[in-house]
């Protein structure tokens, strides 16, 4: 699993693009990397781009929900972008869409977050 991390909007939004297979074996490292980056932000704000995820199981749901809980607990915001069909099916089954905003593209997600922050 590769994690490509950028900051945008004067460092106030973290954009993390995941590439590869997000399973239990990869989950802990992805979680630790994201948490370490989010720790530096006063109000954590994350866009998770999943368009490069070639496989995901419920461990991936755990990573997403885990970040969501931590971020909202600190009054931050999080959304997800680039959801492929297989990931979307897991989102449907788990009801994740009821609690989190899901966007087609990373850019759309960033734009929406910027507007919310104004």
């Amino acid at each position, binding site marked *: 699993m590769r994690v490509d991390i950028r900051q945008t909007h004067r460092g106030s939004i973290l954009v993390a693009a995941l590439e590869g297979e997000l*399973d239990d074996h990869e989950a802990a490292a992805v979680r630790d990397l994201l948490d370490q980056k989010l720790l530096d932000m006063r109000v954590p704000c994350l866009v998770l781009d999943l368009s490069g995820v070639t*496989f995901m199981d*419920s*461990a991936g749901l*755990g990573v997403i*929900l885990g970040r969501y809980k931590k971020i909202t607990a600190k009054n931050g915001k999080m959304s997800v972008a680039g959801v492929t*069909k*297989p990931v979307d099916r*897991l989102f449907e*089954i788990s009801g994740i869409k009821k609690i989190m905003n899901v966007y087609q593209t990373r850019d759309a997600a960033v734009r929406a977050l910027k507007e919310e922050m104004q």
Partner: protein
Amino acid sequence: MKSQNEMSIQFSAISENESFARVAVAAFISQLNPTMEELTEVKTVVSEAVTNAIIHGYAERVGDVYLRCKIMGYTMELIIEDHGKGMEDIDEARQPLFTTRPDLERSGMGFTIMESFMDEMTIESAPNRGTLVHMKKIIRAPHGAARFEV
């Protein structure tokens, strides 16, 4: 009607083998000509059951995971077994969002996903004896062939 075929795998209960297990099963059932969607469903289900054996079954011990796969006609049968710690209450474990390991950020969606991606799922488990998940799925052969497919 396709003929019968069978395989079984035994492997160390370490997380490196989660991807190995799903690729192996995908390669085995490829002779049924599954759609991409069916292949993803089966890989996901293997990943869920094998991960459970590793992180729940063998949380506090070393051991092996046992996986069996059988093809009969267009039906695939999948058995994933561990000789680990087992469960007290199977019905509770099957509930969506139920997990005993929130500390590991488990989502509690494993069994729910297995159930919705397969046609049948039964679980056998006993404390300190281990767990066996038995699943079945009918794979529909896609129609239409290309050139000289020999």
